[in-house]
């Protein structure tokens, strides 16, 4: 049985929201949940600043996903691997 591929963007966003102090963390979680639903998005659209924050949060998760980032020329895995290799080669900490 094959396991579903992890969604690094979504997982990253969840960890980011969890890391926020309370009550901000609960507020952000609610915003993300609303932004992910069409009706929630319409509701958020009435308040510009909140809409922008919610949109930015979800978009951050979207573009953290390797496939979406790669389409924009950003290969995080290659950068991290290259860094690790260089550190080993040069004995950096």
């Amino acid at each position, binding site marked *: 049985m094959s396991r579903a591929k992890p969604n*690094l*963007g979504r997982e*990253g*966003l969840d*960890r*980011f*929201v*969890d*890391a*926020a*102090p309370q009550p*901000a963390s609960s507020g952000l979680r609610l915003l993300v949940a609303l932004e992910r639903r069409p009706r929630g998005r319409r509701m958020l*659209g009435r308040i*510009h600043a909140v*809409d*922008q924050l*919610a*949109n*930015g*949060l979800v*978009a*951050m*998760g*979207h*573009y*953290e996903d390797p496939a*979406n*980032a790669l389409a*924009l*020329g*950003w290969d*995080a*895995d290659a*950068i*991290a691997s*290259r*860094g*690790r290799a*260089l*550190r080993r080669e*040069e004995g*950096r*900490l």
Partner: protein
Amino acid sequence: MSRGRAGRARVVEADVCVIGAGAGGAVAAAELAEGGASVVVLEQGPRHDADRFSARPLDMLARIYRDGGQTTTLGTPPILLPLGRGLGGTTLVNSGTCFRTPPAVLERWQREFGLETLTEDALDPCFARVEAALSISEVTPELAGRNAAVARRGAEALGWSHGFLRRNAKGCIGSGVCAFGCPTSAKQHVGITYVPRAEAAGAQVISGADVRRVLVERGAARGVEAQLVGPGGGWLQVHAPTVIVACGTIHTPLLLARSGLGRASGELGHNLALHPATGAFALMDEVVDMARGVPQSFYVDEFAAEGIMFEGVAGPPSYAAMSLPLSGRRHAAAMERYRNLAMFGLMVSDGSRGSVRSLAGRPVIRYELQEEDVARFRRGL
């Protein structure tokens, strides 16, 4: 501390206990240990393994930033304060820019605080010593990347004063994620420079040590009490006749207040200055790939006398997505052209002042941007 807790605490004796392994604490610890003192360093955050640095902003924000990078001021506007968490403190997550304290600031310190010995001449050997320890040098145009080239082209066309920034980096390849954990360890943050030096000189560095209070006897610091987090847990007391509190601008006043210290001045937790910053995007005809190269590599100081400084800022797509001041279709359309986006930041030398106090163990940071600073931002933008 309760009698029961005091009885169970592990006790360590030292000449000096340093609280915090960031820019202040790590340097003090290394210098003191190399000078022959027995030193214990207590750091609240963990010792990070650069092998786990992923070059993914969201992932790294949650791991190496305090509060996941979401420590925010209360006020108008709310301002995010990027604070590092771990050995290296905020030097772990900053962009690496290293300025000497400008002469105008030294003059103000002399005028306002009577710090007459802190002159440019007196500080010159100190700056030179730190610059050597941190491998501080000017970014080359090649390493600065195309985002800096766009700003440079503009500054040159306008005839504005500009230059490449000096930063603490060695063997940098322009990974573009200085603020999210340098995967090559090129950025010479104090967690990989001064902390190892302190340890080599015999200092004991304890991470995961949440200092609860400074122990005070007859009005003088006599040590520190900390709760150890992670496996084993428990309590630790460091008995030391000298205690250096280097927990940063936000957490130092909170620890002092918890310890009953510094209140008599009436200034504890007040006079908070932030150097608030913002950024602007530009959609270029050319491919910029803003995150390739050193994000903060170039500056424009044409308006420095007005308290406005322009410095590079950039990041991978997820960082840009959060920073774009757009939503809905316009946001999506701008992100589709991410490779053509350029970004540059501006920082204001603020006259506004805020305060820090504790509420249920959490910092409450109040900061209202005053009209003259708003005007600086408007002018800068």
